[in-house]
């Protein structure tokens, strides 16, 4: 009996809840860490960025207005579904990043746990960052954190899954929506993650994942008038200055990121959640 020929997967973009090819029709070959061909990934273009921003903006009112409890459940569902496909991710992370199985396992486990961590934050962050303000006058004044809006994320180039989760999950936890450019050389876990998102009750358009080059797509995200914040993690350090300058033209919130990729296994903190939240202060008189 001959060996069975496996069914190869076509890796496409994740945009508006669907899996289209790049409008440009472009693809690029993806290899494993040793240079062996794995697949052709869609090579996203600036028009894909444009479409993704439209999808993210369209999804924003619904996602930001969803109850925090609901968002928490959705993010937890992502963890559940990810857990169910743990072996697939271990294999993909292992081949993409050239990790030994054990290391790949711990990386995937950390990624799953990261979703759980952020899932739990959705209905607590307002308690921790909000306030009833003791103003000197006959007013009730309160401050609540609200999601910034559409966030452009240039995902880390090295850490194809855990790093991606760490830059994406906090965006979604706040109620913002995301347009993510995945690692260029290691895009396959990102697309597989898209499949997880698509089957985890994450509404279409809330997370959009484009495979392609940060150097090519980053400037379009940075200059886009309908993008409110930018995470330049995956941009080459030399490109970040120009991205930040572009972003300044629309007063985007630009994350300050370390020159080199950080250790994504380090315990997360509130920093990224805070970056995607705007404090809104409301006043009302107290009277009869």
């Amino acid at each position, binding site marked *: 009996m001959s060996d069975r020929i496996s069914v190869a997967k076509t890796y496409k973009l994740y945009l508006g809840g669907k899996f289209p090819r790049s409008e440009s029709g472009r693809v690029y070959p993806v290899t494993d860490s040793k240079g062996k061909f794995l697949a052709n990934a869609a090579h996203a273009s600036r028009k894909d960025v444009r479409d993704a921003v439209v999808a993210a903006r369209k999804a924003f009112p619904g996602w930001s207005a969803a109850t925090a409890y609901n968002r928490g459940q959705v993010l937890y569902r992502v963890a559940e579904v990810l857990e169910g496909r743990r072996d697939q991710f271990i294999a993909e992370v292992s081949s993409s990043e050239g990790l030994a199985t054990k290391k790949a396992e711990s990386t995937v486990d950390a990624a799953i746990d990261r979703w759980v961590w952020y899932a739990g934050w959705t209905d607590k962050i307002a308690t921790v960052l909000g306030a009833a303000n003791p103003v000197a006058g*006959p*007013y009730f004044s309160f401050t609540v954190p609200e999601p910034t809006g559409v966030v452009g994320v240039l995902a880390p180039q090295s850490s194809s899954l855990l790093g991606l989760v760490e830059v994406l999950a906090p965006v979604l936890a706040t109620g913002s929506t995301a347009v993510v450019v995945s690692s260029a050389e290691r895009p396959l876990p990102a697309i597989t993650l898209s499949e997880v998102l698509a089957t985890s009750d994450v509404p279409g358009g809330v997370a959009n994942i484009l495979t392609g080059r940060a150097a090519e797509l980053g400037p379009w995200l940075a200059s886009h008038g309908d993008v409110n914040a930018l995470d330049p993690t995956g941009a080459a350090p030399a490109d970040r200055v120009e991205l930040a300058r572009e972003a300044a033209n629309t007063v985007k919130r630009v994350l300050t990121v370390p020159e080199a990729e950080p250790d994504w296994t380090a315990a997360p903190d509130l920093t990224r959640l805070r970056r995607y939240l705007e404090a809104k202060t409301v006043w009302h*008189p*107290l*009277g*009869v």
Partner: protein
Amino acid sequence: MTATTSTSAAPATPAPLVDATRDDASLRRFLLGLPGVDQVGVEQRAAGLGTRSIKKDAKRWAIDTAISMVDLTTLEGADTQGKVRALAAKAVRPDPERQDTPRVAAVCVYPDMVATAVEALKGSGVHVASVATGFPAGRTSREIKLADTKIAVDAGAHEVDMVIDRGAFLEGRYMAVFEEISAIKAACGDAHLKVILETGELATYDNVRRASWLALLAGGDFIKTSTGKVSPAATLPVTHIMLQAVHDWHVQTGELRGVKPAGGIRTTKDAIKYLVAVHEVAGEAWLTPDLFRFGASSLLNDLLLQRRTQVDGHYSGPDYVTVD
């Protein structure tokens, strides 16, 4: 002082507001449909206007105007004819050594003292105002209230200060309050009717606004804050709301109605704050005793002391003004 009538004698409801008083339901709908009053907002506005700095000529003008707006009042169980005559003398010549001091607008007494006051003030131009309708509580029958009014008017009162039925108002029986004011207005004949809302018992600014409109609809020539027997009596924010009501009434009907804060206004400084409010909330047209009064007793002496300070250029003392 001229006894200008600011409204026609018959309490006819102005055309644009006829619908409001057609029946109980219409009246209720109208009053509850008035814009709300935000407490913090109105108090801030009143406090803000209270910081106006009135100096020199403006202050002198304000003091004289305030004196001419005083309803010099005695409403005590211990009132006697002697007390009323003394007050009348003071009303005509508030500062005997300063003959250019204006006389006050009116002397305000209980109905049984009206005849005494009328006699004492004959020919002076100072009006006699009488409280009536079971003042201050008003907790008596319609018959007695009307009789009380008739006693005052028959004795020669130029002005009647009635109290509204706060119980009925707070029960939401607005038509009952309306009808009672209308009936008293009719009983007043040519006498001017001031309608005391007793705002201290109405508790909210929304109620003050509704009661103001109710009294205006029913034909009150003046709306007056308080009896002076309930705390709080007149306050600046309450007076603001009433001034706003007569302003808006004028915009809608073309008629000029008056406002009288009463009780608790004791100093010239306070009186000037009220005049500033009259000026800026109601409008310049209200800066006349025909349309604005102070219900007060001790205020007059402070106005006189401050008047002397302005005229003489140095501070005066309580022994230089009369105790009556």
